[in-house]
């Protein structure tokens, strides 16, 4: 008791209580909306309002997959965002290494440019972006029809098309995540001593061998951070799929949720909440893994 009193003089007890009270209020503000989604998704008679379910059920989740195209939305989201994340990790791993090791004149302009690119609002870019993608898509569509004929052209364009196709959305989503990922990887490689690479050079390893055998194993923590942030940001993005996708077969989770919500006359809150919860979970899990990198990444952005 006395030891405790010595460590913490009586005066500091009251501020502790105040800290608990304040933090509880802020936490309640942060958490209450999540309770609604969770409870409504398990409620057989869900309402727009937060309430304790009288009839617990998993039926809402079953309906997402049985009655609607939920499985397809989940697949599309995982496929598109997963591919974009992989692409970002590969490109940022290579590019970040180059940015860290080069002494060329373009190093500084390039780094300033990627910092500034991060501040551009995506909405301000989507109209010209759409027109560029449309042009690419038309050229590509004509080529595809010339080579394989019109019969299967639509099916193929669904995969490799720039508009209303997987490839276009993957490339654009990846590009939007690249600046932060390049910055993370560049900073990461800056912290890796060159000794290992120099030893590999002495042993006569080529650039690709050096990357594969020496740098990738060393760079895994950096790649994990870059990949997680790319995944979280691309997973939550709504604007790009909204503009680039129109076929129902290509719909991703944000579009499925948004459009289900727009069917005003038949709003089914249990179904919507279950869908929202399914869409939420991968982001929360990824965020849990990303937590240990948050401080480095955010404050790294501040301190340079």
């Amino acid at each position, binding site marked *: 008791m006395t030891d405790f009193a010595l460590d913490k003089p009586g005066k500091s007890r009251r501020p502790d209580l105040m800290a608990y009270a304040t933090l509880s209020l802020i936490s309640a503000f942060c958490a*209450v909306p999540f309770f609604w989604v969770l409870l409504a998704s398990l409620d057989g008679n869900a309402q727009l309002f937060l309430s304790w379910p009288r009839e617990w059920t998993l039926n809402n989740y079953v309906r997402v997959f049985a009655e609607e195209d939920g499985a397809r939305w989940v697949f599309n989201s995982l496929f598109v965002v997963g591919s974009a994340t992989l692409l970002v990790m590969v490109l940022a791993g290579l590019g970040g290494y180059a940015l860290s090791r080069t002494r060329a004149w373009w190093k500084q302009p390039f780094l300033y440019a990627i910092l500034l690119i991060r*501040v551009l609002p995506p909405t301000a870019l989507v109209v010209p972006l759409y027109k560029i993608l449309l042009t690419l898509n038309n050229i590509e569509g004509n080529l595809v029809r010339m080579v394989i004929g019109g019969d299967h052209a639509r099916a193929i364009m669904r995969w490799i098309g720039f508009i209303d196709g997987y490839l276009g959305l993957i490339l654009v989503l990846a590009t939007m995540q690249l600046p932060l990922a390049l910055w993370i990887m560049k900073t990461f490689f800056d912290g890796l001593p060159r000794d290992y690479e120099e030893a590999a050079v002495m042993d006569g390893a080529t650039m690709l061998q050096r990357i594969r055998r020496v740098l990738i194993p060393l760079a895994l923590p950096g790649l994990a951070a870059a990949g997680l942030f790319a995944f979280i940001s691309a997973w939550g993005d709504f604007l790009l799929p909204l503009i680039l996708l129109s076929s129902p077969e290509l719909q991703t989770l944000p579009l499925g949720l948004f459009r289900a919500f727009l069917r005003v006359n038949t709003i089914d809150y249990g179904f919507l909440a279950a869908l929202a919860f399914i869409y939420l979970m991968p982001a929360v899990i990824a965020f849990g893994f990303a937590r240990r990198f948050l401080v480095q990444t*955010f404050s790294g952005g501040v301190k340079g």
Partner: protein
Amino acid sequence: MVRSTYEKRVARQLLLILSPSLLLLLAFVIYPAVYSVYLSFTNEALTGAAALNPRFVGLRNYSRLLHDAKFWNSLFVTFVFVVGSAIIGQFVLGLISAIMLRRDLAFKQLFSSIILLPNAAPEVVAGFMWISMLAGGENATLSRIVMFFGMTPTDWLQTFPLTMIIVVNTWRGIATAMILLTAGLSTIPSEVYEAARMDGANPSQIFRRITLPLMMPTILLYMLISAVSTIAVFGLVYALTRGGPGGATEVISIYIYNQSFTAFQLGYGAAVAVVALVISLILGIAYVRAMKVQV
């Protein structure tokens, strides 16, 4: 001699492995940005005569901007939204959380996990959850809370639309502010606090005379970066209000979207986009200079 050809080869290889990233950024960010400046000088549209045959119209889109009350409204709404949510809401709650969580509390991890949670919610899910919280009628969560304090409930997104999107965006960004400000707080040496306490300073004096001044550089950087990222917010507001009612929440990114994809006026939408790009770039350059990056 041998050394220099080797170095040249390495330099070429480094540029080569950077080039895919460079290509993507040029094609899908830099070129669109430049292209939107070009578009803003044309009468390009998605439908009608101008769609088939766009013409160069000089500065006409920009002179139209000057007289467009909806454009000025969206600039004003954006300003209030940024100041209310990023500069005041997220900052104040983030700073309070950061300071409180420096204490050695039980459940510290739990508190910070919960505060981080809204940051993980995808924009559309966040919007959907808050439609429930803010709905009209006596059963919605916010209405129940105000009734508990003896006030009258209302349809919150209809009655106080701008205030409500500020509340929601504050909710979403407390964690970012908290993380950045925690990092800033940890750079203040504890000796400074001890010395002040020895001199008999009380907590509020310590906060005003020591914490705030020493935190100023961090706070400035936080303000710039959060202002820029708040200008870019689209999905959250779109899911909640789509800019309504009557333009009350039509922040600039929603206005660009509505002009381009609802009114189909691409040229005019591009002029608004250029304004948003210029404002963001100015704040961005201030940010890069303030953080004194060593690149």
